């Protein structure tokens, strides 16, 4: 029986021709501008993976791959001491309304994402952007070489094709692209002097400038009712229906797509709670399920469903124990932090939590590289015996040298000399079962080295208030490294290195921070990686935080071929155009 979805007639899910795949989203979203901080979400990204174009995409090896459907080439050079990136747009590249992808789309994205107050949204308000990294270092984005004009005429019964050079359009001040050749098919991005951006490949996810400028960046793409009109596609699929009542988003093949077409006719994304995913797969409600958090229960349930396949891999997200060096004066002593790291058995934590989901999980021994990320170097050799008798002895050895505390063999605790109280640290955790388990193990481990830990459960966000000595939380990693300076770095102001915005532990070391800042300004990505490796080495001697383990990401599916798990935040649908139905 044929079912109609949007304007396209497709047979039922199991039909031989006209196939469909339903994938779950673990949560809802409203608003469709994934480049705005108000709308940015993993779930929206899943929906837009096959719709919005970008010059590069992250594959399942977490490597940036040139998207030749969008740009024929993308090169980075140094000209007069400045980094210059040149994109040559594929001449066939068009939005789903027929308008060509041009330099104007790049110009608009630069203006919106630069954080420069001279550029404003359609209503004059500041652009709300999810991230300005890279864009704020750009000096200019200019187009050139528009597509030649092809005219066809019939003269004396013969068809004559004339190809003529197209001039650059003038642009206008109203759209901030006057004199920038907005219709150009070659885009030249020039970075500011002394501010190259080695991660330039991650820039310029695109929106259709001609639509976004008209409807507005901040509020024009929010209304689900108009999303189908305003969210144009330049990918294999296009949005065909938004069903708010069921939080369901339907995509069909983009008829204007010029590249290799997708195999599945209809992709559907629907919101299903994590806990209900495996049952839904087993009952044929949907075919692909990517939980927000994979649990042992899911794996057990999947074992009972013979047709359900799974992939569990370490994601670019890691759990860690953060030290706040300004809340308790003893935490400011690096030997105290090192002693804590030596006292905690991370293997025990893994065995009690994530190891039950992915038995191959090992302690993460880097502050910024994931174990399956190019550039990862194991710097944690000194902590290989942490939590064992050897580690406990080494920890006590360090603590014995810390001024102001003394070990008491009667209660086997360190005491603060000035007050006589046991050396106590407040450990904050969020209260979910994983974090609570981790906190209890840490509490038990640190008791062995004579440190008392008070666990405080705070389900609400309280990191910025700094009211803790230690806190367990996760960082979402990325193949891009430049963000780490915001977490571990500081900015020198009046001779004081003030911790950066996401540096909740208030750790500051100007030398390490400079190493990371220099890496961000490296001339190549490999140089940037080397810089961050050096910073990572230095951080192990300063112990601002203790990395615990990489969290896993999982996909469960049934009746679908071609699924490849991606460790980044790209989500399961990153390669949906090659999926097949079994």
């Amino acid at each position, binding site marked *: 029986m044929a079912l109609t979805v949007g304007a396209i007639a497709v047979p039922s899910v199991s039909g031989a021709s006209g196939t469909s795949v339903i994938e779950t989203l673990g949560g809802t979203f409203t608003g469709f501008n994934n480049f705005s901080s108000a709308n940015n979400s993993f779930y929206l990204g899943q929906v837009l993976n096959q719709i919005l174009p970008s010059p590069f995409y992250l594959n399942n090896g977490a490597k940036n791959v040139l998207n030749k459907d969008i740009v024929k080439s993308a090169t980075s050079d140094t000209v007069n001491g400045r980094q210059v990136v040149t994109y040559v747009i594929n001449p066939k590249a068009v939005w789903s309304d027929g308008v060509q992808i041009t330099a104007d789309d790049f110009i608009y994205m630069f203006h919106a994402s630069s954080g420069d107050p001279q550029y404003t949204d359609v209503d004059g308000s500041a652009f709300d952007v999810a*991230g300005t990294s890279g864009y704020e270092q750009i000096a200019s984005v200019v187009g050139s070489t528009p597509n030649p004009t092809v005219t066809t005429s019939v003269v004396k019964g013969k068809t004559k094709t004339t190809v003529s050079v197209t001039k650059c359009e003038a642009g206008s001040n109203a759209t901030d692209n006057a004199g920038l050749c907005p219709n150009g098919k070659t885009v030249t991005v020039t970075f500011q002097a002394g501010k190259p951006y080695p991660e330039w490949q991650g820039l310029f996810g695109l929106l259709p400038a001609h639509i976004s400028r008209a409807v507005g960046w901040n509020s024009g793409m929010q209304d689900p009712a108009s999303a189908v009109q305003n969210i144009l596609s330049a990918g294999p699929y296009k949005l065909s229906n938004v069903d708010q009542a*069921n939080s369901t988003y339907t995509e069909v093949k983009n008829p204007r797509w010029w590249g290799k077409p997708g195999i599945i006719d209809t992709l*559907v994304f629907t919101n299903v709670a994590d806990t209900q995913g495996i049952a839904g797969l087993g*009952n044929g409600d949907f075919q692909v399920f990517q939980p927000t958090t994979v649990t042992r229960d899911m794996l057990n349930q999947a074992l009972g469903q013979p047709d359900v396949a799974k992939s569990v891999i370490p994601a670019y997200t890691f759990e860690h124990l953060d030290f706040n060096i300004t809340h308790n004066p003893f935490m400011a002593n690096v030997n105290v932090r090192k002693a804590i790291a030596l006292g905690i058995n991370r293997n025990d934590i893994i065995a009690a939590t994530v190891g039950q989901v992915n038995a191959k999980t090992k302690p993460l021994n880097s502050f910024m590289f994931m174990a399956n990320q190019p550039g990862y170097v194991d710097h944690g050799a000194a902590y290989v015996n942490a939590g064992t008798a050897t580690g406990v002895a080494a920890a006590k050895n360090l603590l014995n040298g810390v001024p102001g505390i003394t070990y008491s063999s009667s209660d086997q605790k360190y005491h603060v000399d000035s007050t006589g109280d046991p050396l106590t640290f407040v450990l904050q955790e969020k209260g979910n079962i994983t974090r609570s388990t981790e906190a209890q193990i840490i509490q038990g481990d640190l008791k062995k080295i004579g440190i008392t830990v008070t666990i405080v459960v705070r389900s609400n966000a309280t990191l910025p208030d700094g009211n803790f000595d230690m806190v367990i939380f996760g960082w979402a990693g990325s193949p891009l490294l430049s963000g780490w300076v915001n977490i571990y770095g500081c900015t020198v102001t009046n001779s004081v290195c003030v911790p950066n915005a996401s540096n909740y532990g208030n750790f500051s070391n100007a030398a390490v921070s400079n190493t990371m800042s220099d890496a961000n300004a490296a001339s190549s990505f490999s140089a940037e990686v080397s810089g961050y490796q050096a910073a990572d080495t230095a951080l192990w001697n300063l112990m601002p935080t203790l990395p615990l383990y990489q969290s896993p990401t999982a996909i469960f599916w049934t009746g679908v071929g071609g699924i490849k798990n991606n460790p980044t935040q790209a989500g399961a649908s990153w390669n949906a155009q090659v999926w097949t139905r079994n």
Partner: protein
Amino acid sequence: MVKSGGRKPPAFYFAVRKSSPVCYLDRVLKYIFRRLVSSLLVLWVATIGVFVMVAYSGDPLFDLKMNPTTSPKTILVREHQLFLDRPLPWRYWHWIDNLFHGNLGLDMSNVAVRPQLFIHMVVTLRMVVLAFVLAVVIAVSLGVLAALRRGGFTDRGITFTTFFFLATPVFVTGLFLKFYVAIPLYRYFGHQIFATTGAASPLASGSFFHRIPDYVAHLTLPTVTLILAVFSSWTIYQRSSILETMNLDHVMLARSKGIKPRRVLMRHILRNALIPVTTVLALDFAGLLGGAVVTETVYSWNGLGRWFLEGASKQDLNITLAYLLFTAVLVIMFNLLADIAYGFLDPRIRYR
């Protein structure tokens, strides 16, 4: 005299009807007006309490601030958009001012809340209304049957069943139906009989009538789950109410006069026994929405409950307030209806 076992009506109910029907109606309207005014006051105080609690429950921009690539400028823009840079009284006044203009504000993604409320309300009510009607029919029928067969096998069976489901959490019932009914049926027949997620198939199309089989497939298990969650207490209540009524003087008199048992049941027992049950049902309807939150989660229905839960987890003030306002209005409305119904159903009770 007030029937025991029922919701005890307030003292001002009792009055002797001395005046004309017009005067009586006037009293009813005045009573409703007084109740509405007091209800609005309660509602207003509730909005202040909820506003303050939600506003202080956490930082709605926490996730944004946790993202190391977010620039401080972006955070300032968002704070301005969400009025977080304004004092709390100003924000409350802004919200209440918008409310008086029929505007429930924007959610964290800058999308209007009011249409979302209505969309999710329709999804929830689809399940709740059907479950409510069926549960009432089942509860009244089983309550009467158990009372008439008091002490017998049927009564014991019904009592055991009702207490069993009363003690069973909703999510257990839901998961049982999924794993031991829906999935085995799917495997046996090779195609789906009952859907276990969502209120409708994403691929369903055509007119409403064409979609009815799809709606039924999606509606059956959640409705059954919700019925099993609520019918027990109503059955027990109905049974005890019948038993109590059966022993009243007028029923004994009717029997002694030789009136047929069926007629005694329908006219003298059931009619009177339904009065306290009706008020309980009216009050429980709003509570049923709360029960639907779990059912919606188990079956991944994007109804009001899940909408609220996700909004609350994001510290989305306007979504949380809209949901709580909606449920508060329902509770107050059904309380009022229960009071009015009580008076209409029991001829001895009058308003003043």
